Protein backbone atom coordinates (compact mmCIF):
# COMPACT_ATOMS: atom_id res chain seq x y z
CA UNK A 1 0.00 0.00 0.00
CA UNK A 2 2.85 2.34 0.84
CA UNK A 3 3.98 2.48 -2.76
CA UNK A 4 0.83 4.17 -3.98
CA UNK A 5 1.11 7.92 -3.51
CA UNK A 6 -2.18 9.64 -2.99
CA UNK A 7 -3.27 12.70 -4.95
CA UNK A 8 -3.74 15.99 -3.09
CA UNK A 9 -7.52 15.62 -2.87
CA UNK A 10 -7.36 12.04 -1.59
CA UNK A 11 -4.68 13.08 0.88
CA UNK A 12 -6.91 15.77 2.38
CA UNK A 13 -9.91 13.44 2.42
CA UNK A 14 -7.85 10.83 4.27
CA UNK A 15 -6.99 13.34 6.98
CA UNK A 16 -10.58 14.59 7.26
CA UNK A 17 -11.94 11.09 7.83
CA UNK A 18 -9.14 9.93 10.12
CA UNK A 19 -9.15 13.16 12.12
CA UNK A 20 -12.92 13.02 12.64
CA UNK A 21 -12.72 9.50 14.00
CA UNK A 22 -9.65 10.45 16.05
CA UNK A 23 -11.59 13.29 17.71
CA UNK A 24 -14.39 10.89 18.71
CA UNK A 25 -11.90 8.34 20.03
CA UNK A 26 -9.83 10.78 22.02
CA UNK A 27 -12.80 12.82 23.28
CA UNK A 28 -13.35 10.87 26.53
CA UNK A 29 -9.68 11.25 27.45
CA UNK A 30 -9.61 14.98 26.73
CA UNK A 31 -12.93 15.56 28.46
CA UNK A 32 -11.83 13.54 31.48
CA UNK A 33 -8.65 15.59 31.91
CA UNK A 34 -10.37 18.92 31.26
CA UNK A 35 -13.16 18.19 33.73
CA UNK A 36 -10.63 17.07 36.31
CA UNK A 37 -9.57 20.76 36.29
CA UNK A 38 -13.08 22.21 36.57
CA UNK A 39 -15.24 23.25 39.51
CA UNK A 40 -18.46 21.38 40.19
CA UNK A 41 -20.67 24.34 39.30
CA UNK A 42 -18.95 24.71 35.94
CA UNK A 43 -19.37 21.00 35.19
CA UNK A 44 -23.07 21.19 36.00
CA UNK A 45 -23.67 24.39 34.04
CA UNK A 46 -25.85 24.27 30.92
CA UNK A 47 -23.43 25.96 28.56
CA UNK A 48 -20.66 24.01 26.87
CA UNK A 49 -17.26 25.38 27.72
CA UNK A 50 -14.21 23.40 26.67
CA UNK A 51 -11.45 25.15 28.59
CA UNK A 52 -12.01 25.54 32.34
CA UNK A 53 -13.14 29.01 33.40
CA UNK A 54 -12.09 28.65 37.02
CA UNK A 55 -9.28 26.22 37.66
CA UNK A 56 -9.88 23.68 40.40
CA UNK A 57 -7.09 21.24 39.55
CA UNK A 58 -5.43 21.34 42.96
CA UNK A 59 -8.73 20.89 44.83
CA UNK A 60 -9.89 18.03 42.59
CA UNK A 61 -6.64 16.07 42.63
CA UNK A 62 -6.25 16.59 46.38
CA UNK A 63 -9.80 15.29 46.86
CA UNK A 64 -9.09 12.29 44.60
CA UNK A 65 -5.98 11.42 46.59
CA UNK A 66 -7.40 11.98 50.07
CA UNK A 67 -11.09 11.06 50.00
CA UNK A 68 -10.11 7.49 49.20
CA UNK A 69 -6.62 6.04 49.66
CA UNK A 70 -5.82 6.41 45.96
CA UNK A 71 -2.06 6.13 46.44
CA UNK A 72 -2.62 2.86 48.26
CA UNK A 73 -4.68 1.59 45.32
CA UNK A 74 -1.90 2.54 42.92
CA UNK A 75 0.67 0.82 45.12
CA UNK A 76 -1.53 -2.31 45.22
CA UNK A 77 -1.74 -2.18 41.44
CA UNK A 78 2.05 -2.03 41.19
CA UNK A 79 2.55 -4.84 43.71
CA UNK A 80 -0.02 -7.15 42.14
CA UNK A 81 1.06 -6.64 38.52
CA UNK A 82 4.77 -6.90 39.23
CA UNK A 83 4.54 -9.96 41.48
CA UNK A 84 2.26 -11.68 38.95
CA UNK A 85 4.78 -11.02 36.19
CA UNK A 86 7.79 -12.18 38.23
CA UNK A 87 6.04 -15.39 39.28
CA UNK A 88 4.90 -15.94 35.70
CA UNK A 89 8.51 -15.81 34.55
CA UNK A 90 9.64 -18.07 37.38
CA UNK A 91 6.97 -20.71 36.68
CA UNK A 92 6.53 -20.56 32.93
CA UNK A 93 9.97 -19.89 31.50
CA UNK A 94 11.47 -23.21 32.75
CA UNK A 95 8.40 -25.08 31.51
CA UNK A 96 8.77 -23.43 28.10
CA UNK A 97 12.43 -24.43 27.98
CA UNK A 98 11.58 -28.03 28.87
CA UNK A 99 8.97 -28.11 26.12
CA UNK A 100 11.26 -26.58 23.53
CA UNK A 101 14.61 -28.18 24.25
CA UNK A 102 14.34 -31.27 26.46
CA UNK A 103 13.26 -34.72 25.41
CA UNK A 104 11.14 -36.55 27.93
CA UNK A 105 8.23 -38.91 27.88
CA UNK A 106 4.94 -37.05 28.02
CA UNK A 107 6.30 -33.95 26.36
CA UNK A 108 3.79 -33.92 23.53
CA UNK A 109 0.98 -34.64 26.00
CA UNK A 110 2.13 -31.67 28.07
CA UNK A 111 2.26 -29.47 24.99
CA UNK A 112 -1.23 -30.64 24.06
CA UNK A 113 -2.43 -29.73 27.55
CA UNK A 114 -0.93 -26.24 27.23
CA UNK A 115 -2.60 -25.71 23.84
CA UNK A 116 -5.91 -26.95 25.22
CA UNK A 117 -5.69 -24.62 28.21
CA UNK A 118 -5.10 -21.69 25.85
CA UNK A 119 -8.77 -22.00 24.93
CA UNK A 120 -10.05 -21.54 28.50
CA UNK A 121 -11.31 -18.00 29.14
CA UNK A 122 -10.42 -16.66 32.61
CA UNK A 123 -14.07 -16.26 33.60
CA UNK A 124 -14.80 -19.96 33.14
CA UNK A 125 -12.73 -21.04 36.12
CA UNK A 126 -13.83 -18.25 38.47
CA UNK A 127 -16.45 -20.08 40.55
CA UNK A 128 -14.39 -23.14 41.56
CA UNK A 129 -11.27 -21.02 42.06
CA UNK A 130 -13.25 -18.68 44.30
CA UNK A 131 -14.60 -21.64 46.31
CA UNK A 132 -11.05 -22.98 46.63
CA UNK A 133 -9.78 -19.67 48.03
CA UNK A 134 -12.82 -19.46 50.30
CA UNK A 135 -12.14 -22.93 51.73
CA UNK A 136 -8.45 -22.11 52.13
CA UNK A 137 -9.30 -18.90 53.94
CA UNK A 138 -7.37 -16.91 51.36
CA UNK A 139 -10.09 -14.58 50.11
CA UNK A 140 -9.27 -10.94 50.63
CA UNK A 141 -5.50 -11.40 50.43
CA UNK A 142 -2.80 -10.47 47.97
CA UNK A 143 -2.44 -14.22 47.38
CA UNK A 144 -5.99 -14.43 46.01
CA UNK A 145 -5.25 -11.54 43.65
CA UNK A 146 -1.99 -13.05 42.43
CA UNK A 147 -1.94 -16.87 42.58
CA UNK A 148 -4.48 -17.75 39.86
CA UNK A 149 -2.39 -15.83 37.32
CA UNK A 150 1.01 -17.30 38.16
CA UNK A 151 0.30 -19.95 35.55
CA UNK A 152 0.18 -18.52 32.06
CA UNK A 153 -0.22 -21.18 29.40
CA UNK A 154 -0.03 -18.34 26.93
CA UNK A 155 3.37 -17.38 28.37
CA UNK A 156 4.56 -20.99 28.15
CA UNK A 157 3.39 -21.25 24.55
CA UNK A 158 4.90 -17.91 23.54
CA UNK A 159 8.29 -18.58 25.17
CA UNK A 160 8.37 -22.12 23.83
CA UNK A 161 7.91 -20.79 20.29
CA UNK A 162 10.74 -18.38 20.94
CA UNK A 163 13.07 -20.99 22.47
CA UNK A 164 12.53 -23.28 19.48
CA UNK A 165 14.45 -20.72 17.43
CA UNK A 166 17.47 -20.73 19.78
CA UNK A 167 20.20 -22.95 18.26
CA UNK A 168 20.89 -26.24 20.09
CA UNK A 169 24.64 -25.59 19.80
CA UNK A 170 24.32 -22.77 22.31
CA UNK A 171 22.79 -25.14 24.87
CA UNK A 172 25.21 -27.97 24.13
CA UNK A 173 28.12 -25.61 24.61
CA UNK A 174 26.75 -24.62 28.00
CA UNK A 175 26.36 -28.30 28.93
CA UNK A 176 29.93 -29.05 27.89
CA UNK A 177 30.98 -26.23 30.20
CA UNK A 178 29.26 -28.14 32.97
CA UNK A 179 26.27 -25.84 33.39
CA UNK A 180 23.17 -27.44 34.91
CA UNK A 181 19.85 -27.37 33.05
CA UNK A 182 18.48 -24.89 35.58
CA UNK A 183 21.57 -22.75 35.04
CA UNK A 184 20.94 -22.91 31.30
CA UNK A 185 17.38 -21.65 31.75
CA UNK A 186 18.39 -18.57 33.70
CA UNK A 187 21.86 -17.78 32.35
CA UNK A 188 21.60 -18.81 28.69
CA UNK A 189 17.93 -18.85 27.70
CA UNK A 190 16.68 -15.87 29.73
CA UNK A 191 19.16 -13.38 28.20
CA UNK A 192 18.29 -14.50 24.67
CA UNK A 193 14.57 -14.19 25.44
CA UNK A 194 14.56 -10.56 26.59
CA UNK A 195 12.65 -9.14 23.57
CA UNK A 196 9.92 -11.78 23.85
CA UNK A 197 9.81 -11.31 27.63
CA UNK A 198 9.38 -7.55 27.29
CA UNK A 199 6.43 -8.05 24.96
CA UNK A 200 4.91 -10.63 27.29
CA UNK A 201 5.59 -8.42 30.31
CA UNK A 202 3.74 -5.47 28.76
CA UNK A 203 0.84 -7.73 27.87
CA UNK A 204 0.75 -9.17 31.38
CA UNK A 205 1.07 -5.86 33.24
CA UNK A 206 -1.57 -4.11 31.10
CA UNK A 207 -4.00 -7.03 31.47
CA UNK A 208 -3.68 -7.21 35.25
CA UNK A 209 -3.50 -3.49 35.92
CA UNK A 210 -6.81 -3.15 34.07
CA UNK A 211 -8.45 -6.31 35.39
CA UNK A 212 -11.70 -5.67 37.19
CA UNK A 213 -13.55 -9.00 37.23
CA UNK A 214 -11.25 -11.05 39.46
CA UNK A 215 -10.31 -8.36 42.04
CA UNK A 216 -14.00 -7.46 42.28
CA UNK A 217 -14.79 -11.04 43.24
CA UNK A 218 -12.02 -11.87 45.70
CA UNK A 219 -11.31 -8.58 47.43
CA UNK A 220 -13.64 -6.81 49.86
CA UNK A 221 -11.08 -5.02 52.01
CA UNK A 222 -10.42 -1.49 50.76
CA UNK A 223 -6.76 -1.77 51.72
CA UNK A 224 -6.35 -4.38 48.94
CA UNK A 225 -8.17 -2.50 46.17
CA UNK A 226 -6.41 -2.23 42.82
CA UNK A 227 -6.88 0.97 40.74
CA UNK A 228 -9.99 -0.19 38.80
CA UNK A 229 -11.73 -1.20 42.03
CA UNK A 230 -10.61 2.07 43.60
CA UNK A 231 -12.12 4.23 40.85
CA UNK A 232 -15.38 2.25 40.87
CA UNK A 233 -15.49 2.63 44.66
CA UNK A 234 -14.84 6.37 44.41
CA UNK A 235 -17.77 6.68 41.99
CA UNK A 236 -20.15 4.76 44.28
CA UNK A 237 -19.07 6.77 47.29
CA UNK A 238 -19.40 10.16 45.68
CA UNK A 239 -22.08 9.59 43.11
CA UNK A 240 -23.55 12.74 41.68
CA UNK A 241 -21.81 14.99 44.12
CA UNK A 242 -18.32 15.63 42.81
CA UNK A 243 -17.47 14.97 39.21
CA UNK A 244 -14.24 16.95 39.22
CA UNK A 245 -12.53 14.71 41.79
CA UNK A 246 -14.02 11.61 40.11
CA UNK A 247 -12.45 12.61 36.78
CA UNK A 248 -9.20 13.32 38.63
CA UNK A 249 -9.33 9.81 40.13
CA UNK A 250 -9.97 8.29 36.69
CA UNK A 251 -7.07 10.28 35.25
CA UNK A 252 -4.74 9.12 38.02
CA UNK A 253 -5.67 5.47 37.54
CA UNK A 254 -5.01 5.40 33.80
CA UNK A 255 -2.02 7.76 33.84
CA UNK A 256 0.79 5.24 34.53
CA UNK A 257 -0.10 3.01 31.57
CA UNK A 258 -0.99 5.83 29.20
CA UNK A 259 2.29 7.64 29.87
CA UNK A 260 4.25 4.40 29.44
CA UNK A 261 2.32 3.74 26.22
CA UNK A 262 3.07 7.17 24.77
CA UNK A 263 6.76 6.73 25.57
CA UNK A 264 7.09 3.23 24.10
CA UNK A 265 4.22 3.05 21.64
CA UNK A 266 5.59 0.37 19.35
CA UNK A 267 6.53 -2.01 22.14
CA UNK A 268 3.12 -1.61 23.76
CA UNK A 269 1.27 -2.30 20.55
CA UNK A 270 3.42 -5.38 19.93
CA UNK A 271 2.91 -6.62 23.47
CA UNK A 272 -0.82 -6.13 23.63
CA UNK A 273 -1.57 -7.51 20.18
CA UNK A 274 0.16 -10.72 21.21
CA UNK A 275 -3.25 -11.45 22.70
CA UNK A 276 -4.42 -11.86 19.14
CA UNK A 277 -3.23 -15.38 19.64
CA UNK A 278 -5.00 -15.65 22.96
CA UNK A 279 -8.03 -13.33 23.28
Amino acid at each position, binding site marked *: *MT*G*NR*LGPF*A*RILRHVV*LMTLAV*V*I*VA*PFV*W*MVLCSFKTQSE*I*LSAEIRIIPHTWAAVENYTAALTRVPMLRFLLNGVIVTLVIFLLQVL*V*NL*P*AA*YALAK*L*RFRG*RSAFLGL*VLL*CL*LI*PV*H*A*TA*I*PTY*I*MFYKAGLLNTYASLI*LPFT*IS*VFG*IFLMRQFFMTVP*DDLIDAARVDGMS*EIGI*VWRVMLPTAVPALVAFGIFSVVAHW*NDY*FWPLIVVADQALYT*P*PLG*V*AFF*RLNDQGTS*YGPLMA*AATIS*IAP*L*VIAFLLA*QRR*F*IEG*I*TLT*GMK*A
Partner: protein
Amino acid sequence: MSRDASQPVTGVAGVPSRRHGHRAVAAVLAGPALVLIVLFLIGPLACVALLSLTDYQLGAATLNYVGGKNYAEMFSDRVFQKSLTNTLLYVAITVPGSVLLGLGAALLIEADRGLRTFYRAIYFLPVMATLIAMSIVWEFMLHPQFGIVNQLVKALGLSRIDWLQNQSVVLFTLCGIGIWQSLGFNMVLFMAGLTSIPKDLYEAAAVDGANSAIDRFRLVTWPMLGPVTLFVVVITAIRSFQVFDTVQVLTKGGPNKASEVLLYTMYSEGFEFFRSGYASAVTVVFLVFVLALSALKVFVLDKRVHYA
Protein backbone atom coordinates in the same frame (compact mmCIF):
# COMPACT_ATOMS: atom_id res chain seq x y z
CA MET B 1 19.19 -31.98 21.25
CA SER B 2 18.86 -33.64 17.88
CA ARG B 3 21.58 -36.07 18.97
CA ASP B 4 19.35 -37.45 21.67
CA ALA B 5 16.52 -38.11 19.31
CA SER B 6 18.60 -40.65 17.44
CA GLN B 7 19.71 -42.47 20.58
CA PRO B 8 17.93 -45.62 21.69
CA VAL B 9 15.46 -45.20 24.54
CA THR B 10 17.51 -47.26 27.00
CA GLY B 11 20.98 -45.67 27.06
CA VAL B 12 24.04 -47.34 25.58
CA ALA B 13 25.64 -50.16 27.62
CA GLY B 14 26.05 -48.98 31.16
CA VAL B 15 25.69 -45.29 30.35
CA PRO B 16 22.56 -43.81 31.94
CA SER B 17 20.13 -42.68 29.28
CA ARG B 18 20.09 -38.99 28.49
CA ARG B 19 16.36 -39.39 28.18
CA HIS B 20 16.04 -40.38 31.79
CA GLY B 21 18.32 -37.56 32.81
CA HIS B 22 16.07 -35.14 30.96
CA ARG B 23 13.05 -36.70 32.51
CA ALA B 24 14.16 -35.78 36.02
CA VAL B 25 15.20 -32.29 34.93
CA ALA B 26 11.97 -31.82 32.99
CA ALA B 27 9.99 -32.75 36.09
CA VAL B 28 11.80 -30.05 38.04
CA LEU B 29 11.44 -27.44 35.30
CA ALA B 30 7.90 -28.14 34.13
CA GLY B 31 6.51 -29.63 37.35
CA PRO B 32 5.41 -26.36 38.99
CA ALA B 33 3.65 -25.24 35.80
CA LEU B 34 1.91 -28.61 35.51
CA VAL B 35 0.72 -28.49 39.14
CA LEU B 36 -0.63 -24.96 38.65
CA ILE B 37 -2.34 -25.94 35.39
CA VAL B 38 -4.20 -28.68 37.23
CA LEU B 39 -4.93 -26.45 40.23
CA PHE B 40 -6.10 -23.31 38.41
CA LEU B 41 -7.19 -24.41 34.93
CA ILE B 42 -8.08 -28.05 34.35
CA GLY B 43 -9.33 -28.70 37.89
CA PRO B 44 -11.66 -25.69 38.07
CA LEU B 45 -12.87 -26.35 34.53
CA ALA B 46 -13.89 -29.89 35.48
CA CYS B 47 -15.42 -28.55 38.71
CA VAL B 48 -17.56 -26.02 36.84
CA ALA B 49 -19.01 -28.80 34.70
CA LEU B 50 -19.68 -30.96 37.79
CA LEU B 51 -21.00 -28.11 39.96
CA SER B 52 -23.52 -27.23 37.25
CA LEU B 53 -25.17 -30.59 38.00
CA THR B 54 -25.53 -29.85 41.72
CA ASP B 55 -27.53 -27.55 43.97
CA TYR B 56 -24.39 -26.29 45.72
CA GLN B 57 -24.59 -22.89 47.36
CA LEU B 58 -21.45 -21.35 48.76
CA GLY B 59 -21.25 -21.93 52.50
CA ALA B 60 -23.86 -24.72 52.44
CA ALA B 61 -22.85 -27.88 54.28
CA THR B 62 -24.32 -30.25 51.71
CA LEU B 63 -24.31 -30.66 48.00
CA ASN B 64 -26.77 -32.78 46.04
CA TYR B 65 -26.69 -34.11 42.53
CA VAL B 66 -29.65 -32.60 40.70
CA GLY B 67 -28.93 -33.66 37.13
CA GLY B 68 -30.10 -31.15 34.52
CA LYS B 69 -32.29 -29.18 36.93
CA ASN B 70 -30.11 -26.05 36.81
CA TYR B 71 -30.14 -26.12 33.04
CA ALA B 72 -33.91 -26.61 32.92
CA GLU B 73 -34.42 -23.75 35.35
CA MET B 74 -31.99 -21.58 33.43
CA PHE B 75 -33.54 -22.02 30.00
CA SER B 76 -37.03 -21.30 31.33
CA ASP B 77 -35.83 -18.26 33.29
CA ARG B 78 -36.72 -14.93 31.70
CA VAL B 79 -33.57 -13.27 33.05
CA PHE B 80 -31.33 -15.90 31.48
CA GLN B 81 -33.18 -15.76 28.16
CA LYS B 82 -32.80 -12.00 28.14
CA SER B 83 -29.15 -12.35 29.13
CA LEU B 84 -28.41 -14.77 26.29
CA THR B 85 -30.23 -12.76 23.61
CA ASN B 86 -28.65 -9.51 24.84
CA THR B 87 -25.18 -11.07 24.70
CA LEU B 88 -25.77 -12.39 21.18
CA LEU B 89 -27.11 -9.00 20.08
CA TYR B 90 -24.13 -7.26 21.69
CA VAL B 91 -21.75 -9.56 19.78
CA ALA B 92 -23.74 -9.17 16.55
CA ILE B 93 -23.41 -5.36 16.71
CA THR B 94 -19.97 -4.92 18.23
CA VAL B 95 -18.14 -7.38 15.96
CA PRO B 96 -19.05 -5.85 12.58
CA GLY B 97 -18.75 -2.33 14.03
CA SER B 98 -15.29 -2.75 15.44
CA VAL B 99 -13.97 -4.96 12.61
CA LEU B 100 -15.15 -2.66 9.82
CA LEU B 101 -13.97 0.50 11.56
CA GLY B 102 -10.67 -1.21 12.40
CA LEU B 103 -10.25 -2.26 8.77
CA GLY B 104 -11.20 1.17 7.46
CA ALA B 105 -8.79 2.89 9.85
CA ALA B 106 -5.97 0.51 8.91
CA LEU B 107 -6.51 1.00 5.16
CA LEU B 108 -6.67 4.78 5.45
CA ILE B 109 -3.70 5.04 7.79
CA GLU B 110 -1.55 2.80 5.60
CA ALA B 111 -2.61 4.58 2.41
CA ASP B 112 -0.21 7.46 3.01
CA ARG B 113 2.60 8.49 5.33
CA GLY B 114 1.18 11.64 6.90
CA LEU B 115 0.60 11.43 10.67
CA ARG B 116 0.65 7.63 10.55
CA THR B 117 2.16 7.15 14.03
CA PHE B 118 -0.09 9.82 15.48
CA TYR B 119 -3.30 8.20 14.26
CA ARG B 120 -2.17 4.76 15.30
CA ALA B 121 -1.41 5.97 18.82
CA ILE B 122 -4.75 7.79 19.19
CA TYR B 123 -6.79 4.86 17.90
CA PHE B 124 -4.94 2.42 20.11
CA LEU B 125 -5.30 4.48 23.28
CA PRO B 126 -8.68 3.01 24.41
CA VAL B 127 -7.33 -0.53 24.03
CA MET B 128 -4.87 -0.13 26.84
CA ALA B 129 -6.58 2.46 29.06
CA THR B 130 -8.37 0.96 32.09
CA LEU B 131 -11.89 0.21 30.85
CA ILE B 132 -13.47 0.74 34.26
CA ALA B 133 -12.09 4.28 34.52
CA MET B 134 -13.11 5.08 30.95
CA SER B 135 -16.59 3.60 31.49
CA ILE B 136 -17.05 6.07 34.31
CA VAL B 137 -15.93 8.87 32.02
CA TRP B 138 -18.45 7.70 29.41
CA GLU B 139 -21.19 7.63 32.04
CA PHE B 140 -20.30 11.21 32.93
CA MET B 141 -20.32 12.26 29.25
CA LEU B 142 -23.64 10.49 28.70
CA HIS B 143 -25.32 12.01 31.75
CA PRO B 144 -28.97 12.80 30.85
CA GLN B 145 -28.83 16.44 32.02
CA PHE B 146 -25.35 17.92 31.93
CA GLY B 147 -23.44 15.30 29.94
CA ILE B 148 -21.53 16.75 27.00
CA VAL B 149 -23.15 14.30 24.56
CA ASN B 150 -26.68 15.41 25.41
CA GLN B 151 -25.60 19.04 25.39
CA LEU B 152 -24.38 18.51 21.82
CA VAL B 153 -27.57 16.60 20.94
CA LYS B 154 -29.61 19.51 22.30
CA ALA B 155 -27.46 22.06 20.47
CA LEU B 156 -28.38 20.23 17.26
CA GLY B 157 -32.02 20.79 18.11
CA LEU B 158 -32.77 17.17 18.97
CA SER B 159 -34.29 15.91 22.20
CA ARG B 160 -32.11 14.46 24.93
CA ILE B 161 -31.56 10.73 25.11
CA ASP B 162 -31.28 8.79 28.34
CA TRP B 163 -28.39 6.68 27.07
CA LEU B 164 -27.98 4.37 30.03
CA GLN B 165 -31.44 4.36 31.59
CA ASN B 166 -33.64 3.93 28.55
CA GLN B 167 -34.39 0.22 28.00
CA SER B 168 -34.46 0.45 24.24
CA VAL B 169 -31.20 2.40 24.01
CA VAL B 170 -28.93 1.06 26.75
CA LEU B 171 -27.60 -2.03 24.97
CA PHE B 172 -26.69 0.03 21.90
CA THR B 173 -24.88 2.51 24.11
CA LEU B 174 -22.83 -0.33 25.59
CA CYS B 175 -22.12 -1.62 22.06
CA GLY B 176 -20.88 1.86 21.18
CA ILE B 177 -18.48 1.86 24.12
CA GLY B 178 -17.39 -1.67 23.16
CA ILE B 179 -16.65 -0.60 19.58
CA TRP B 180 -14.84 2.53 20.77
CA GLN B 181 -12.68 0.38 23.01
CA SER B 182 -11.79 -2.41 20.59
CA LEU B 183 -11.47 -0.90 17.12
CA GLY B 184 -7.84 0.12 17.67
CA PHE B 185 -6.92 -3.45 18.50
CA ASN B 186 -8.41 -4.69 15.23
CA MET B 187 -6.77 -1.81 13.38
CA VAL B 188 -3.32 -2.96 14.52
CA LEU B 189 -4.01 -6.56 13.45
CA PHE B 190 -5.15 -5.35 10.03
CA MET B 191 -2.11 -3.08 9.70
CA ALA B 192 0.12 -6.09 10.32
CA GLY B 193 -1.87 -7.98 7.68
CA LEU B 194 -1.53 -5.13 5.18
CA THR B 195 2.23 -4.76 5.54
CA SER B 196 2.68 -8.48 4.90
CA ILE B 197 1.06 -8.25 1.45
CA PRO B 198 3.88 -8.50 -1.12
CA LYS B 199 4.29 -5.23 -3.05
CA ASP B 200 4.82 -6.99 -6.39
CA LEU B 201 1.21 -8.15 -6.25
CA TYR B 202 0.15 -4.51 -6.60
CA GLU B 203 2.64 -4.02 -9.42
CA ALA B 204 1.34 -7.11 -11.17
CA ALA B 205 -2.23 -5.88 -10.75
CA ALA B 206 -1.20 -2.48 -12.18
CA VAL B 207 0.33 -4.21 -15.21
CA ASP B 208 -2.99 -6.00 -15.67
CA GLY B 209 -4.75 -2.65 -15.73
CA ALA B 210 -5.95 -2.33 -12.12
CA ASN B 211 -5.26 1.34 -11.60
CA SER B 212 -7.95 2.67 -9.31
CA ALA B 213 -7.73 2.29 -5.56
CA ILE B 214 -10.98 0.33 -5.63
CA ASP B 215 -9.55 -2.15 -8.17
CA ARG B 216 -6.41 -2.60 -6.11
CA PHE B 217 -8.50 -3.25 -3.00
CA ARG B 218 -10.86 -5.64 -4.79
CA LEU B 219 -8.18 -7.59 -6.65
CA VAL B 220 -5.26 -7.66 -4.22
CA THR B 221 -5.86 -6.26 -0.71
CA TRP B 222 -9.15 -7.91 0.11
CA PRO B 223 -8.31 -11.45 -1.09
CA MET B 224 -4.94 -11.28 0.67
CA LEU B 225 -6.55 -9.95 3.83
CA GLY B 226 -9.22 -12.66 3.88
CA PRO B 227 -7.63 -15.01 6.43
CA VAL B 228 -6.66 -12.09 8.70
CA THR B 229 -10.22 -10.77 8.56
CA LEU B 230 -11.69 -14.11 9.54
CA PHE B 231 -9.21 -14.30 12.40
CA VAL B 232 -10.03 -10.76 13.59
CA VAL B 233 -13.77 -11.47 13.44
CA VAL B 234 -13.40 -14.57 15.58
CA ILE B 235 -11.23 -13.01 18.28
CA THR B 236 -13.45 -9.91 18.41
CA ALA B 237 -16.44 -12.20 18.89
CA ILE B 238 -14.66 -14.04 21.72
CA ARG B 239 -13.82 -10.74 23.41
CA SER B 240 -17.34 -9.41 22.94
CA PHE B 241 -18.83 -12.49 24.58
CA GLN B 242 -16.80 -11.53 27.64
CA VAL B 243 -18.45 -8.11 28.03
CA PHE B 244 -18.68 -7.44 31.76
CA ASP B 245 -16.90 -4.32 33.07
CA THR B 246 -19.14 -1.73 31.41
CA VAL B 247 -22.30 -3.59 32.45
CA GLN B 248 -21.24 -4.14 36.04
CA VAL B 249 -20.22 -0.56 36.66
CA LEU B 250 -22.75 1.34 34.52
CA THR B 251 -26.05 -0.53 34.41
CA LYS B 252 -26.02 -3.63 36.64
CA GLY B 253 -27.87 -5.32 33.79
CA GLY B 254 -30.70 -2.81 33.91
CA PRO B 255 -33.00 -1.11 33.42
CA ASN B 256 -35.41 -4.03 33.59
CA LYS B 257 -32.69 -6.48 32.43
CA ALA B 258 -32.27 -4.59 29.15
CA SER B 259 -28.47 -4.85 29.44
CA GLU B 260 -28.22 -8.15 31.30
CA VAL B 261 -25.39 -10.22 29.71
CA LEU B 262 -24.07 -13.75 30.35
CA LEU B 263 -21.04 -12.89 32.47
CA TYR B 264 -23.05 -10.44 34.52
CA THR B 265 -25.71 -13.12 35.16
CA MET B 266 -22.93 -15.52 36.15
CA TYR B 267 -21.40 -12.89 38.44
CA SER B 268 -24.61 -11.94 40.20
CA GLU B 269 -25.81 -15.55 40.65
CA GLY B 270 -22.41 -16.84 41.69
CA PHE B 271 -20.91 -14.01 43.69
CA GLU B 272 -23.87 -11.98 44.94
CA PHE B 273 -26.45 -14.72 45.60
CA PHE B 274 -23.80 -17.46 45.94
CA ARG B 275 -25.86 -19.95 43.96
CA SER B 276 -22.69 -21.68 42.76
CA GLY B 277 -24.46 -24.62 41.07
CA TYR B 278 -26.74 -22.44 39.00
CA ALA B 279 -23.98 -19.95 38.19
CA SER B 280 -21.83 -22.87 37.01
CA ALA B 281 -24.56 -23.84 34.56
CA VAL B 282 -24.52 -20.27 33.21
CA THR B 283 -20.73 -20.52 32.95
CA VAL B 284 -21.03 -23.73 30.94
CA VAL B 285 -23.28 -22.01 28.40
CA PHE B 286 -20.82 -19.11 28.17
CA LEU B 287 -17.98 -21.60 27.76
CA VAL B 288 -19.73 -23.50 24.97
CA PHE B 289 -19.96 -20.31 22.90
CA VAL B 290 -16.38 -19.25 23.58
CA LEU B 291 -14.97 -22.72 22.92
CA ALA B 292 -16.90 -23.02 19.66
CA LEU B 293 -15.37 -19.71 18.55
CA SER B 294 -11.93 -20.79 19.78
CA ALA B 295 -12.18 -24.00 17.79
CA LEU B 296 -12.94 -21.87 14.76
CA LYS B 297 -9.92 -19.71 15.59
CA VAL B 298 -7.60 -22.72 15.77
CA PHE B 299 -8.95 -23.78 12.39
CA VAL B 300 -8.33 -20.30 10.98
CA LEU B 301 -4.86 -20.17 12.51
CA ASP B 302 -3.98 -23.49 10.92
CA LYS B 303 -5.10 -22.12 7.60
CA ARG B 304 -2.92 -19.08 8.03
CA VAL B 305 0.05 -21.31 8.66
CA HIS B 306 -0.62 -23.05 5.34
CA TYR B 307 -0.76 -19.71 3.54
CA ALA B 308 2.55 -18.59 5.01
